[in-house]
């Protein structure tokens, strides 16, 4: 186009609620600036739908700064779109070509039921987190930065795992809809640091039990989660979770039992 803007065709999954069947509906997205984010492009489309008196497309979004993990869109076969290491709100329309057809689907997992259109219910993650993904010691006032010496590599590793925003892209990308990358990131984040030690082995058992109860699949070490994670969480977290879990179950029975009572 002369002004450099793009015209696109969107194939969007429309579904009234979890109980009804959904289907793809095609929409035209016209005069889209390449500098818009993917969510802004959807805003433009929704505005025109509203003007026409049609129901706008329902999708999740919040901070639009790559932090909140809400923008759970499966775009052209990739969670958060085709670019690596970013969320949907950080995906810009210049990634696509003028005239391109873009297919937008919700996360597909038994444990993430569809709320409406592209929005899914990810409260399963909250329940896993509530099962043990916290430290319950009284932390008091904020201690000095160097009060507890922690080796740099450990601090870095814990921080890298803590960057997980719980967006669910790992579940969406995994062929088994496994939540193990998310759960293991949370376990690693807390388990590596001194504050997380007292509950380390009870935590891993509670969170894995809750994960199983929610109906997520098992990890087959395929690595699709790591490849698609917007925060580039590493697969090694899963190995660390396995290690802690087997250690807790097979060798730390008494210790864990005492903590539970």
């Amino acid at each position, binding site marked *: 186009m002369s002004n450099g803007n793009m015209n696109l065709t969107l194939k969007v999954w429309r579904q009234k609620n979890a109980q009804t069947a959904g289907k793809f509906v095609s929409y035209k997205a016209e005069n889209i600036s390449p500098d818009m984010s993917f969510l802004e492009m959807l805003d433009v489309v929704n505005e025109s739908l509203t003007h026409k008196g049609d129901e706008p497309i329902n999708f999740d979004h919040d901070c639009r700064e790559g932090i909140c993990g809400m923008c759970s869109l499966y775009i052209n076969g990739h969670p958060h779109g*085709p670019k690596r290491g970013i969320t949907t709100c950080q995906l810009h329309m210049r990634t696509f070509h003028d005239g391109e057809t873009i297919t937008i689907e919700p996360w597909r997992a038994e444990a993430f039921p569809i709320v409406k259109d592209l929005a899914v219910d990810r409260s399963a993650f909250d329940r896993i987190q509530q099962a043990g993904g916290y430290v319950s010691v009284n932390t008091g006032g904020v201690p000095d930065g160097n009060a507890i010496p922690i080796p740099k590599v450990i601090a870095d590793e814990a921080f890298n795992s803590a960057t997980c925003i719980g967006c669910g892209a790992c579940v969406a*990308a995994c062929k088994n809809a496994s939540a*193990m990358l998310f759960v293991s990131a949370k376990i690693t984040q807390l388990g590596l640091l001194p504050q997380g030690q007292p509950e380390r082995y009870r935590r891993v058992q509670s969170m*894995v*039990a809750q994960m199983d109860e929610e109906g997520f699949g*098992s990890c087959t070490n*395929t*690595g699709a989660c790591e490849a698609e994670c917007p925060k580039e969480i590493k697969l090694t977290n899963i190995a660390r979770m396995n290690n802690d879990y*087997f250690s807790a179950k*097979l060798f730390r029975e008494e210790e864990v039992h005492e903590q539970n009572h």
Partner: protein
Amino acid sequence: MSEFKQTLNSSLGKKLIMALTGLFLCTFLIVHVGGNLLLFKHDDGFSFNVYANFLTHFPPIEVIAYLLYLSILVHALYGLILTVKNRKARPVRYAVAAKSDASWSSKNMGLLGSVLFLFIVIHMGDFWFRYHNDKTMGFKEYRTDLATGETKVSDYTPANAEFSHSVSTENNVEVVRVKDLHARVTTSFSNLIYVIFYVIAMGAVAFHLLHGFQSAFRTLGWVHRKYTPVVYFIGTWLFAVIIPLLFAAMPVYYYYLSTQGAH
């Protein structure tokens, strides 16, 4: 005990069973390929037949063999259970499935495993079952002159049906009488269809272990900056290249010999 069962029933426990049985089967492959290399010796099957006889008559090996059969069944069964559970976790598939970074073998372990299971059933029926139950399987007599080391081979017909094997020395000549499994190998591997199936199955072994060996270590939680590259190296070169190639070379070699009219 219930705690133990609960552990094994968890998603991580099921994977642990897959990893442990898988690694046990990997160690067996090393022993199996080592013994089978005797097929490349030009001694009318003397070494191979003695080796097969040893395997079936040495009690500790028999115990390990039954552990092995159990491992194959448990590994296959848990693979099936996990696959069904994993499919249930994603009941609706995506309309667009883009090419991902994940390796082909990692995404098709169930398919590769099914090919292997079919192969193992046929393979055991052809060799193991016949060796144990086929009354028509012939015997060979190997007479080795202990002074010269020269071995002469002839067919042997046992006096009674209960005969399994014997070793004796007569006038400085060692006489070994054993079941002739080598003849079975020669017959089976002269069939081109069987040879092709065997080679395809070894391709399946290669891809199954290319992912499976290192994956088992990850499941056990044994990932380390220093040792994981070693695990990858062994998994790739030993288990996915050398061992399948050696196994596949046997039927190809025997088929080649059969076309030459000799064995």
